[in-house]
């Protein structure tokens, strides 16, 4: 069992609780223990774009101090910070790079955070769970599979922040394979499609939902046309724009066929044979359970509900 610091991020505790639940359950199967620090703060999503903006780096850096504290207390085995939300991953990693490379900013940040018990050393490594899985080897994942997702045609959706900018992304920007490898290890079929790194519209969903619906429609339609019957993602905002936003999409594109969108860890939990608390499909919209039941990947309860 390897213990990593786990950084949940705000949405995984609220609207994306299903992402957290499926993550913690499936990680355990792979002997990955995710240790949440007692204190952590919002990463500040997104990365501060003005180059002289030091204030917005405090939030991410403060979390790295939490990792170093956990390591010092021997609660974790390394100085990696495992994130699930792609936006958190991106923000944290970029702040970390700025801190390590810019001596002036480093000093300003130290000076402002004088009330912390330790000064950040710069030695924390921000990683996405997918990277941890890749490092452990896809065979490890495969050997944990109890119910291969045979017949499931999965479109891997990366979105923007998992792959960009270069040096921050977890895989090659143009030709990533990390999600594909995971999907195959779980026994499902990968459906490659043209829009897998196209933006879903992100936070424009707040005040420009029609534009977001347009972008998301394109992504989903391409995946459907390529033959996918389900989409996976690693970002709660993408999940929202591609999933629940389908109601808006249908208003603008009445002929649109709905297609379920789930987190990659939910598919992992399903393939590992874990129970419904772990797969946590109840919160997903549209509901993936009819599809999964129909394909024999999930069992129906005696009372007709899904298991």
């Amino acid at each position: 069992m390897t213990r990593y610091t786990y950084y949940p991020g705000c949405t995984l505790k609220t609207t994306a609780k299903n992402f957290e639940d499926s993550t913690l359950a499936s990680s355990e199967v792979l002997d990955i223990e995710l240790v949440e620090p007692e204190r952590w703060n919002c990463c500040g999503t997104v990365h501060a774009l003005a180059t002289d903006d030091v204030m917005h780096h405090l939030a991410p850096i403060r979390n790295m101090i939490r990792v170093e504290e956990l390591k010092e207390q021997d609660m974790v085995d390394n100085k990696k910070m495992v994130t699930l939300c792609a936006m958190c991953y991106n923000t944290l990693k970029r702040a970390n790079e700025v801190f390590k490379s810019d001596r002036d900013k480093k000093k300003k940040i130290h000076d402002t955070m004088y009330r912390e018990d330790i000064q950040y050393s710069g030695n924390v490594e921000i990683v996405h769970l997918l990277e941890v899985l890749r490092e452990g080897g896809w065979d490890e994942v495969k050997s944990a599979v109890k119910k291969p997702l045979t017949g499931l045609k999965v479109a891997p959706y990366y979105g923007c922040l998992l792959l960009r900018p270069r040096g921050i992304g977890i895989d090659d920007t143009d030709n990533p394979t990390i999600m594909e490898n995971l999907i195959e290890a779980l026994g499902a079929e990968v459906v490659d499609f043209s829009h897998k790194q196209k933006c879903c519209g992100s936070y424009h969903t707040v005040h420009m939902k029609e534009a977001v619906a347009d972008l998301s429609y394109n992504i989903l339609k391409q995946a459907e046309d390529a033959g996918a019957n389900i989409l996976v993602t690693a970002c709660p905002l993408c999940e929202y724009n591609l999933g629940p936003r389908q109601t808006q999409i249908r208003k603008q594109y009445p002929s649109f066929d709905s297609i379920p969108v789930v987190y990659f860890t939910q598919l992992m939990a399903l393939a590992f044979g874990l129970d419904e608390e772990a797969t946590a499909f109840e919160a997903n919209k549209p509901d993936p359970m009819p599809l999964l039941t129909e394909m024999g990947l999930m069992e129906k309860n005696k009372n007709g509900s899904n298991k």
Partner: protein
Amino acid sequence: MEATNEMVTIYVMGKKYEVPGDLTIMKAMEYAGHQFRRGSGCRGGYCGACATLYRTKGSYKLEGALACQKIVEDGMYIAQIPFNPAEKITYNINELRPDANTILEYYPEVSRCLSCNTCTKACPQDIMVMDYVQTALRGDIAKTAELSFDCISCGLCAVRCPAEIVPYNVATLARRLNAKYIDGPSQHVLDRVKEVEEEIYDEDIDKLMKASKEELAELYNNREVDLSE
């Protein structure tokens, strides 16, 4: 403890005074001739009326304190903040639920929190203010209630917050939601209320009400004392 019997120099709103060095800021201001109308309340660290900002000689750091609890120092520059301009959002507690987004609905500015920790530095009650704003941000109402419990709403955090959040108002909402819905009422209290309504104690209380002083004294001095849990 830095108190001294010697006289020290302090500046109150810029005006210079010589005061005994072992006085609190509050008493020092009174010694200097000031009668509080605003800025003095319980005088014991409970009410937050005497929120004060000060700097000490040679230091650029702006500190916050309660005037009734902080002893003066030589060269102290003092300003009182008896009121923090903050709109208090109104709500009907009976209509709310302790959902993850309830707090953000009423105090959306919470999402502007930069985690800069200025609020925590300003707090005279040693509360981890930033931490409870963060737990409020992610909908952890119980934790927000727990961390903010000792808050006396002095206003120093709100005055200094760059994101213009009023933490103590956020905390009040969290605490009420937590106590009312997450903790909920104790059943034995509700049971006893019902018993009283059903008048099962009336007869015995009536007897006591009619008893003479001597009878009462007899009962009182010989009453059973059971302090077990």
